[in-house]
């Protein structure tokens, strides 16, 4: 399944989200923000499309504000 891009309000949030997903057992890779994503942060996270809902749940449980999901 194709990867999805999770983006956030700041690079700090992206860092915190990386840690939260790691703790939740969701594999995520920090990548430069793609040109088609509009976000103040210039980093975002790439996760497998199959783990999207698990990732969003983990971020919600950790209290990390998700800026959006790009596919």
């Amino acid at each position, binding site marked *: 399944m194709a990867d999805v891009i999770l983006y956030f309000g700041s690079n*700090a949030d992206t860092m915190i989200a990386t840690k939260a997903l790691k703790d939740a057992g969701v594999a995520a890779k920090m990548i*430069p923000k793609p040109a088609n994503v509009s976000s103040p942060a210039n980093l975002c996270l790439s996760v497998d499309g199959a783990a999207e809902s698990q990732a969003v749940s983990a971020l919600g449980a950790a209290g990390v504000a998700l800026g959006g999901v790009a596919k």
Partner: protein
Amino acid sequence: MKMSLRARLLGTIVGAILLCFVISIVAARFTLQRDLRSQGQAQVTNGASAFGGYWDSRKDQIRLLVAQDAVADALRAALEAHNAKGLSDQLSNVARTSGLSFLTIVDANGRVVARANGPTGGSLAANPFVKRALTGETVSTAGVLTPADLAGEGLAPQATADIKDADGKVVSHLNEGLALVSAAPMSDRNERTIGAIYGGVLMNHYYDIVDQSTHALGGASALLDGDAIVASTILAPDGTRIVDQALPETAGVASGTPFDGSETVGGTEYLVHVEPILNDQNKPVGARWYGTPMAAINDIINHTTESLALWGLLAAIVALALAVPVVQRISNTIGRRSKQVSDAAKELGVAIVGSEVSGDHVAATKTAVEKSGALIDDLAKAGDPTGKVAQLKSLNEELSGDMFVIDTLSQEMSSRMTQAVARVHELGDVAGALDKLVTGES
């Protein structure tokens, strides 16, 4: 002056204890002085009233003696018979056994028939007490005997004295006498007044009453004629009685106003009450002085103050013994925390330096990866028959992306570290201030 937190805390505690201690002692001393003096004054006033009781009792005793003599058959018979020699002998016996200073019988015209002592003859017709007695009145009063009265009764030597001040300098001469006198009419069998009997006790240098009062009441007693002591139990430093001395502080009593207060006599300060002696016409003729040494009050005040000081000192030592370990513990705790903060600040400083150096290294690596990408592009332009250049380019692009992420993270951390630097400086300042507070040294 630099002082450590320990010194300041202990200094503050010691200062507070000492201040409390001093204020307590001053307040206690002030209160004791006021209350004890008030109580002492009440006691002295009561003592003075009792002294007055002895005085009145003696006056009544004299009145009774004279009145009894006035109706004694032997005396009346001798008077009727004008037996001067027999009367004189009887009067001498009565006066001696009754403790009277003088006892005189006059006829109906006031001429002296006989005296207990002193020369016979003369007239007491002008004597106010005798005059009243001859009208049928029994007189009993305190009074002042004039020099002529005293001379007639042979009492002038007992009363005459030079009055000195506290320094021993003669300030006046006394030739009158303070006395308790009584006079009563004498009648024949038909109750016609045939004369009068007149007697009393001269108080000058007469110590029975003052001794009796002091023995029963304590303190010291004195009788004053004007402002001169004529009899007293006040002792001089050498143990002798103080008499024939002026007390200028109590001169106002001669006008009839009682005096309450302190007075120094014979080098001793007394708390005194001075009461005017009034005659039966309510005119002041002398004064009764009663006092207790202020030393009795001052001893209590000093003893109480010393006790308070001693117990206060003990309390201060106990308080300090309790406070010192507490202050020591607080100082040690703050000192330990201060050192922890200081050490943490130093470690953070190392982390900041490491972050800065690491950031520089990341930036250099990113630049190298970018240069590598440019070289791969140049190689691709020259042709890629094996497709290896394309693979290398893809790998380099992936590396470039990772480097971007690492560089961004590095910059983010650097920004955070910059903020941490400010906090570390603040923590360093706090640690320094704590250290200065605890040790007193910068």
